[in-house]
């Protein structure tokens, strides 16, 4: 009885050991076969899924029938269910949008008594705006996407690496009427740089001679784009005022350091303020701000990339 029961176990064991020995002996062949099968499966899957998107089963010709060059939709248009094609974001030939969440790292920016930290909220705002812009087909680059703190020049350098760029900087103030937003553009001094440089006395020559070169200095990179930035900021401010009643009617021209070296239309948006009692008040402002940015940029730079803003490259 015991022997009869043991015989199948012995046979199974023997078979198992034989299988292992066979695998070891023919390991190279087995590995090759498995690799081929895996490669076949991997290459076959995308084809079938793409085919499914481009030509639904209902539109494919039946087996045995001759295939024609007629597009599938014309060949057999289903009356009630049009083919489901995945929405593709529009390809935008317009400017690169550089989004700049201010501060970062050890520079926290403004801090509220209720734990609101500017650097964190502006990063959230930048990410949501990036998503909204990318959905519209814009190419978006961020000056930081973590808790780092690039210098002003590093941020400008990221923007200036592109020929056609719009620079948008995000801030949250420590003062101001809560639930309002302001748009800023860089305002240079109306007195030309070095036109009346510091003199030791009235009869001596200026210490710094007036610039005669036509090259654009890094420190003055924003100057040729002043009008374009002003117009973009005005459009943005009008949109923000609609979304956040109480915001100022027009954009403000302020010497915001972060905008000075950007060689393209550049605006800063500042929300008020970190002193709110509930952080969610500011979080709720983020999405409308992102929408306002998308609308404003689309209004000034329609798809196709041709500048609607004078002064842009």
């Amino acid at each position, binding site marked *: 009885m015991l022997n009869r029961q043991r015989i199948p176990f012995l046979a199974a064991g023997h078979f198992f050991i034989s299988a292992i020995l066979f695998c070891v002996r023919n390991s190279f062949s087995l590995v090759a076969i498995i690799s081929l099968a895996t490669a076949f499966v991997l290459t076959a899957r995308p084809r079938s899924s793409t085919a499914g998107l481009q030509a639904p089963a209902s539109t494919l010709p039946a087996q045995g029938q001759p295939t024609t060059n007629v597009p599938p939709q014309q060949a057999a248009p289903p009356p009630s269910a049009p083919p489901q094609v995945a929405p593709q974001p529009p390809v935008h030939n317009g400017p690169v949008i550089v989004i700049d969440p201010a501060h970062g790292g050890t520079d926290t920016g403004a801090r509220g008594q209720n734990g609101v930290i500017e650097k964190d909220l502006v990063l959230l705002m930048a990410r949501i705006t990036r998503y909204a812009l990318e959905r519209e087909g814009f190419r978006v680059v961020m000056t930081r996407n973590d808790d780092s703190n690039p210098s002003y020049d590093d941020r400008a350098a990221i923007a200036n690496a592109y020929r056609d760029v719009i620079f948008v900087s995000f801030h949250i103030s420590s003062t101001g009427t809560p639930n309002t937003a302001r748009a800023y553009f860089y305002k240079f*001094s*109306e007195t030309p740089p070095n036109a*009346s440089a*510091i003199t030791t006395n*009235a009869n001596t020559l200026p210490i710094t001679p007036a610039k005669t070169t036509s090259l654009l200095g890094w420190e003055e990179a924003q100057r040729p784009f002043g009008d374009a930035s002003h117009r973009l900021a005005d459009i943005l401010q009008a949109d923000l005022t609609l979304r956040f009643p109480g915001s100022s009617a027009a954009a403000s021209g*302020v010497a915001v*350091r972060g905008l000075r070296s950007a060689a393209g239309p550049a605006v800063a948006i500042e929300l008020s303020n970190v002193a709110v009692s509930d952080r969610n008040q500011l979080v709720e402002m983020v999405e409308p701000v992102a929408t306002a940015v998308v609308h404003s940029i689309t209004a000034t730079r329609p798809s196709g990339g041709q500048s609607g803003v004078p002064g842009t490259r």
Partner: protein
Amino acid sequence: MPRNLKITLAILSLAVLIGLISLRSLHRRITGLKENPTSEEQARRDLLATTTSAPTDARMQTKIFWAAGPDKIAPVQVALALSPDPVKRAKQVLNELITDAPAADQRTLPADAVVLGFYILPDGTAIADFSEALASETPSGILSEQMAVDSIKSTLENNVPGLSRLKILIHGQEVETLAGHVDLTGFFDLNPPSAQSPSAPASNPAPSGTKK
């Protein structure tokens, strides 16, 4: 009891008595220090404070620009004895702007800020040198920094004639920004041609008030 020991005990008792008497006045001084903490900036201000007005200075109405809400500044009429010398006059009005705000929420510059120096170049460029407190204690933000600069600009524009532009230094040095946003490497226009037109106010105007 030996005589030496008696003398020693007497001296020690006397020392303890003197200590107890002086302890009271020492305690009073410490309490006074706690009540009136004097920061380094305030001590410097006391040291640097020149006579803000001379007997010959004429008392006149000045316009000092303080905050008139969370996001705007407005002039307040203040009667001040002003020097005819534009440098002294500029210091007087800036000191008034810093030290004499009608209310705490109307302050645009930190209370600890000090005007360390003020210079006017022949071309009308004004250079205002402030202490470190201006940069370190101004609330961070474009709006608050803009209001601080605008209050300095507007106060100078309205009280010191002949200035064309303003350069702000911190402790004698050019700094990149005031408190992280507003660029201090350049100049600020005073009485710019564009501001003469009614469509370009210096900052959100608000009804003016009278302080004194």
